[in-house]
C-alpha cells in the first residue's frame, strides 16, 4: 500500500450506488479487458500472416466453447467502451453535464452496449454457424 500517512478519501463501499458510478467503473474495467484483448487482435494478425495452419489453429481456439465465451465478453466490453467512450467525448466537449442528462446518458451507454452485443452475435450466429 501507499507509503504515506496522509488521510485517504472514503472508498467505494461508503457511497450509495448510482448508475453514474457503475458506468465510470465499467469504463475502466472494460478498458483493462480491451487492453488484454488487444493481444487477441495481435494473435489473429500473426496467425493470418503465419499461414493457413497457424490461422486454422487460431480459428479453432476462437471457435471453441471457451473461445466463444471470451469473444462474447470481448464484444460486450468493446461495445460498452465504445458507447461510454463516445459519451465521455461528448462530455469533454462540455455537453450533457446536467444531472438528469448525466444519468440518462449513463443508461444509454449500458443499454446501447447490450443492443450492439446482441446485434453482433445475432449476425454471427445467423450468418453460418459459430465461427
Amino acid at each position, binding site marked *: 500500500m501507499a507509503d504515506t500517512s496522509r488521510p485517504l478519501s472514503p472508498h467505494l463501499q461508503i457511497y450509495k450506488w448510482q448508475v453514474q458510478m457503475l458506468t465510470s467503473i465499467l469504463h475502466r474495467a472494460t478498458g483493462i479487458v480491451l*487492453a488484454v484483448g488487444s*493481444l487477441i*487482435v495481435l494473435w489473429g*494478425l500473426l496467425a*493470418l*500472416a503465419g499461414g493457413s495452419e497457424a*490461422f486454422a489453429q487460431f480459428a479453432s481456439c476462437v471457435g471453441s466453447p471457451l473461445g466463444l465465451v471470451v469473444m462474447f465478453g470481448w464484444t460486450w466490453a468493446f461495445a460498452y467502451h465504445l458507447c461510454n467512450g463516445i459519451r465521455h*467525448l461528448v462530455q469533454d466537449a462540455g455537453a450533457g453535464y446536467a444531472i438528469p442528462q448525466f444519468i440518462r446518458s449513463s443508461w444509454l451507454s449500458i443499454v446501447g452496449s447490450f443492443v450492439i452485443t446482441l446485434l453482433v452475435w445475432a449476425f454471427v450466429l445467423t450468418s453460418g454457424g459459430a465461427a
Partner: protein
Amino acid sequence: MNAKDLRHPIKRARGLGSAQSGVGHWWIQRVTATALVALGLWFLVTVLRLAHADYTTAHAVVARPWNAVLLIAFVIAMFWHAVLGLQVVIEDYVHTRWKEVSLLVLVKFLAVLGALASVLAVLRIALGA
C-alpha cells in the same frame, strides 16, 4: 522552507514547474479515442464479414491496400490508447514507487512490441512476403 537548508531557492523550484506538456496525456487519449470510434467500428464490421471466412478469403481481404492501411491505423491507435489508459490505472492503484515505474515501463514495452508485431504482420500479409 527549512532554515537549515543551504540550497538556493531556485534549486527547489527547478524541475517542479510546468513541463509544458500538462494536457499531453489527456489530449492524446481523446485524439486516439476519436480515431478509435471510427476505426473500431470499421474493424468490427470487417471482422464480422470475415467471421466464417477461410484462410484464403481472410488473407485476401486484409491484403487489400485500404484495409491494410486502416488495420495498421487501428492497431497503432489501439495500443497507444491502451498504454495511456493502463498508465492511469497503474498510477491510481500501484502506490509502491518501484512497482509503479516497473509496471509502467513493462506496459509500454509490451504495447510497442505488440504494435510493431501487428504492423509487421499486416505488412507481410499485404505485401505477400
